[in-house]
């Protein structure tokens, strides 16, 4: 049980970084967990230097999806779109497989999620929205 609801994950879920109102229609991307109906609307703002200034999201989801979004909001701040894309790919590749080494910080809370395969989608939700938001940003150019 404690594999999944570790203190780190619970702390993020209870006080999520970046959670807020993103009215429908104002989002840069949204993602839906078709298994449960959970959804996230994501809004990204960028600095003049091109780095991520702030990630705001409105998420109706479980503790796992909320913690994942919170960790991402904190970790990705300041990163360039290309760096975020690289991190998103690495996250997806590691989640439920190799897991997260020390340099991944709080994301280590997802080590062991492979025992709960149904929850992998929950942890991925914010990252799916992020990838869509980055793709939309690329297409705008």
């Amino acid at each position: 049980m404690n594999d999944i609801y570790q203190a780190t994950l619970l702390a993020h879920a209870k006080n999520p970084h970046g959670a807020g109102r993103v009215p429908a229609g104002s989002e840069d991307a949204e993602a839906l967990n078709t298994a449960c109906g959970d959804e996230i609307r994501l809004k990204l703002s960028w600095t003049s230097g091109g780095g991520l200034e702030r990630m705001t999201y409105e998420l109706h989801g479980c503790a796992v999806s909320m913690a994942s979004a919170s960790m991402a909001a904190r970790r990705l701040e300041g990163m360039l779109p290309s760096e975020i894309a690289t991190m998103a790919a690495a996250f997806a590749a590691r989640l439920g497989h190799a897991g997260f080494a020390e340099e991944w910080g709080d994301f280590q809370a997802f080590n062991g999620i492979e025992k709960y395969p149904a929850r992998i989608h929950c942890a991925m939700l914010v990252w799916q929205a992020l990838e869509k938001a980055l793709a939309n940003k690329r297409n705008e150019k």
Partner: protein
Amino acid sequence: MSERPESAGKGEVFDPGSIRRPFAILNRDLAWLDNAATTQRPEPVLKAMDQFYRLHNANTRRSVHRLGAEATAAYEGARAAVAAFIGAKSPAEIVFTGGTTASINLAVAGFARWEIGPGDEVWVSAMEHHSNWVPWQEAVKGVGASLKVIPLTSDGRLDLAAFRKGLSAHRAKWVAATWVSNVLGAANDVRAICAAAHAAGARVLVDGAQGVAHLPADVAAMDCDFFAFSGHKMYGPMGIGALWGRGELLEQMHPSIFGGEMIARVDEQTSTWAEVPYRFEGGTPHVAGAVGLAAAIEWVRALPPAAHEHVANLAREAAERLAALKDVRVWGPAEGRVSLVSFSVKGVHAHDVAQVLDSRGIAVRAGHMCAQPLMRRLGIESAVRASFAPYNTTDEIRRLLEGVRAAQELFT
């Protein structure tokens, strides 16, 4: 069938232990409270399927050899068992399908879509499962017909007064309604729905999936036109179900699965169809599934009335005790629960409640339960559902409540 429960009269104390024994899977340390998703199967069902494959396996109807005759007899015997189980006039009114979803799709594709046209209205109830909603969306799409929804009353029942008022005798063509809601838990008055629909000239398809394990099914008394159900929600195998249709309607229904078994004569350019119901069963049928379903029917029919009372009592008790917990909201009407209770825990997502419960060996459903339109009407994205069978116990409700409290402690 020595495993069959001994019958107990009304008022006698029911012992779930006597029912539990033939369910080997329940020997795992497991409180299986996800029966509305799928029940477990008792030994006689497993044995019947096993014996079919070990002793009688052959394709049906087209084999001259003795195993073919045995397989055909088993398959047609199962059809007769289904017919008797739901009060059909004849086994020919029973079409075997892959389950409730396949049954509804068959009726919509083979019948409803052929007669729904511009200006027509199709009604679905607000508490339909996606399987009795989405096919109707498809049926009205692109033909100028519209989908209307039977609304809910504030206590979570169907608002039949609003339905009667909104029914148009000129436009209403079809009504799709569930017998028992897979979320709210009460049985609908399908007989009243059918009466109103027929008075307006509309036909009715009833989704019986959540009812057949718990309530006596009688399509004649319901007076519906089509009735769909699955084997696996009534202790039978997955992958088998049935569509019942009034004989004269099945004669008008178009086949939608074409190929072997369903034809009378095939020429190079055209074909003619086998008689009803075979023309709707293209391809090799799931004979072992039908045999297992027949065994499940026999098992359900042998349940004493006290077993059904026990299930209803568990659902009522669980609902009452959950509702008494702080920050827990129970959905659906207080009276008339057939077998299940859905609830939400304030501040704790349904998946997290279910995960905590799973860690304690309690299996429940969490999510939208394939009823997203209903969830939106209730103002929620998801809920937790505990659903019961005769093998469940009061002690499992105690464990459920302890688990819910543990989830509250963890997340709030």
